[in-house]
């Protein structure tokens, strides 16, 4: 059986003879080819980091963000097709606002994950193409901090730590080494920055901007960009660690 589509990959509404939906697999490939995004759940919150590949020196720093807030207590890092990513974030924001309006309370992480997942899943059923987006969802609700990953297929799961994009294999290996249940978010920010710098492929992609965000006790359980000083410290430490490795 061919693993390239050859005719079974034209629409989302077609199963291949092996029972795969190639359009969904291809959407996943779009995500796998984009810049790395990482999320880790520490003992007091969740940290998100994105390797934002910069295609032109003329781009203003801090524009074209890939980390968004969907509510005070929830944030999303997108990887894959940026325009698709914005649609997912819009939907997540609408779901969160709707929930608040209807139930009078902040949307729980599990519920928001399910809503995003079932929304993405819709697009794997009918005539449109699937969303080429991998979503990392960080939430801090009454159950504590949670990290979810929702794939292009609409499958959402809760993680201790995860990575999507080009450098995900290397990043996941590094994340597995961390003792996440003992780490604070401050330490987590440094770890995430270090890992992103590590998996960034200098040969293939040159410049990149590091986006970092967190939702933790220190940020009063609000999803925010990491404070500028901590961000700077993390980047310096990450660059230094890379040079140390080069020296070895």
């Amino acid at each position, binding site marked *: 059986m061919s693993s390239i589509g050859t*005719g*079974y990959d*034209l*629409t*989302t*509404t*077609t*199963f*291949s*003879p*092996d*029972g*795969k*939906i190639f359009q969904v697999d291809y959407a996943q490939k779009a995500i796998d080819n984009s810049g790395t995004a990482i999320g880790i759940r520490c003992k007091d919150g969740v940290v998100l980091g994105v390797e934002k590949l910069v295609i032109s020196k003329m781009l203003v720093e801090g524009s074209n963000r890939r980390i968004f807030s969907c509510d005070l207590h929830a944030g999303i890092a997108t990887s894959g097709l940026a325009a698709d990513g914005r649609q997912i974030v819009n939907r997540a924001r609408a779901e969160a606002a709707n929930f608040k309006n209807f139930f009078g309370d902040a949307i729980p992480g*599990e519920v928001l994950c*399910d809503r995003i*997942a*079932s929304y*993405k*899943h*819709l697009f*794997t*059923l*009918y*005539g449109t193409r699937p969303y080429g987006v991998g979503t990392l969802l960080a939430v801090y609700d009454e159950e504590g901090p949670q990290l*979810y990953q929702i794939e292009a*297929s*609409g*499958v959402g*799961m*809760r*993680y*201790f*730590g*995860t990575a999507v994009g080009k450098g995900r294999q290397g990043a*996941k290996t590094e*994340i*597995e080494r961390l003792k996440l249940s003992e780490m604070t978010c401050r330490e987590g920010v440094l770890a995430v920055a270090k890992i992103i710098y590590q998996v960034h492929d200098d040969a293939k992609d040159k410049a990149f901007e590091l986006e970092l965000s967190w939702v933790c006790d220190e940020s009063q359980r609000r999803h925010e960009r990491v404070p500028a000083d901590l961000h700077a410290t993390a980047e310096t430490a990450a660059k230094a660690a890379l040079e140390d490795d080069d020296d070895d």
Partner: protein
Amino acid sequence: MSRGSGAGYDHHITVFSPEGRLFQVEYAFKAVKAAGFTSIGVRGKDSVCVVTQKKIPDKLIDPSSVTRLFKITKFIGILVTGMMADAKSLISKARQTAADFRHSNGYEIPVDYLAKVIADQAQVYTQHAYMRPLGVASILFAIDEELGPQLFKTDPAGYYVGYKATAAGAKEQEAVNFLEKKMKSDPSLSYDETVQAAIAALQSVLSEDFKATEIEVGVVRAGDDTMFKVLPVEEVEDHLTAISERD
């Protein structure tokens, strides 16, 4: 969108092939197998037990968020096998159906009727060319007020029927062979025998001895409390021990 008529499209959309086959539906069945899990259900004289593997592919996944055993209502449980995103969609619809029924009619939806509704929806997907079938086989179970323990399976073709014992997924055929031998004499299984039969069947077809944390077990029992329950690890442990002592 590809046209319905013309050579070759019978493999691509849900139209008949010249031999009268629906290839897309057959491929949907393959998707259920391709997921790599096996699920088993056994009906006893006053209980029903379903069991399946719990395989977490990635150490970084939080295992408490991964399950294929869900509650449709307090009394009806469902075990899904196949594509998880499709399964969640099916479960969501089933929950809505059950809740609407309870609201409109004032009593709990019977599990055979729910299975019919799910199956009818699946059939619609096999007839409309612009939709694809869901790659899910669902095993539904409950204690019916009038009929006692009930076990149903629905599949991507829109077929559903009640079973004494059934299986779905990667090792479906091997499991069915094992269960046929077990149920041949039409035994009247007690609760413990039902649970142990289901677990033993899974162990046999997968040729491995499980730890209690590697399987999920769901039950319903006749009596005062007919609610769907997921067995806690200690109880699963007890059943596993009973099975190994028997052998």
